């Protein structure tokens, strides 16, 4: 099945694009998609380990099972704390 992955901030700079479509097996969860991305872009590994996950604009745990056409976004740490 196909899912949509969008990249923002530091992730976009590493990946070099805003978004892509991934083909993953049925039953793949967020952690599985993350492993697939790390395999494809090894420089993503440290930042993905610190990131939260969102599916269809909601924060979700890493064991959330993906569905066809889901929008998956990894949310690197937010840095606004100090201002």
């Amino acid at each position, binding site marked *: 099945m196909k899912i949509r992955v*969008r990249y*923002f*901030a*530091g992730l*976009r700079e590493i990946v070099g694009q805003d978004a892509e479509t991934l083909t993953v097996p049925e039953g793949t969860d967020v952690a599985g998609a993350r492993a697939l991305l790390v395999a494809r872009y090894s420089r993503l590994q440290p930042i993905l380990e*610190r990131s939260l996950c*969102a599916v269809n*604009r*909601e924060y979700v745990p890493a064991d959330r099972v993906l569905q066809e056409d889901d929008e998956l*976004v990894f*949310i*690197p*740490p*937010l*840095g*606004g*704390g*100090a*201002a």
Partner: protein
Amino acid sequence: MEPVIQITREPLNREALVTAVAAPEVGGIVIFEGVVRNHARGKQIRYLEYDAYPEMAEQQIRRIVEEARQRWGAERVAVAHRLGRIEIGEASVIIVVATPHRAEAFEACRYIIDTLKTTVPIWKKEVSLDGEAWVEG
């Protein structure tokens, strides 16, 4: 009223946001404005660059504003966040809360900015004399 929520690449307009929340029953308005400053973490900042996951950011802000409405009766709220390159002295975020009495406006405004900073997918990159880096809170 429906809250005003803007995520925009244009300079923020404080006057327009205050006008949007005005009403005859309003007795206190609290405005918070986050401004780009010239130094952070020991570095001299040249400018900041903001990025967002805009659809989710807007949805999260809407949820925070709804929580503020329930907790403090803050019925009249505007939140605007700017994206892209922002120079020193310019506002990156403006929050306006108008209530009949001031205590609720202070509480709700502070809750909204504190929660926004920690949960809404908006990121900033500091561009300093030493280089540039996405800030992790």
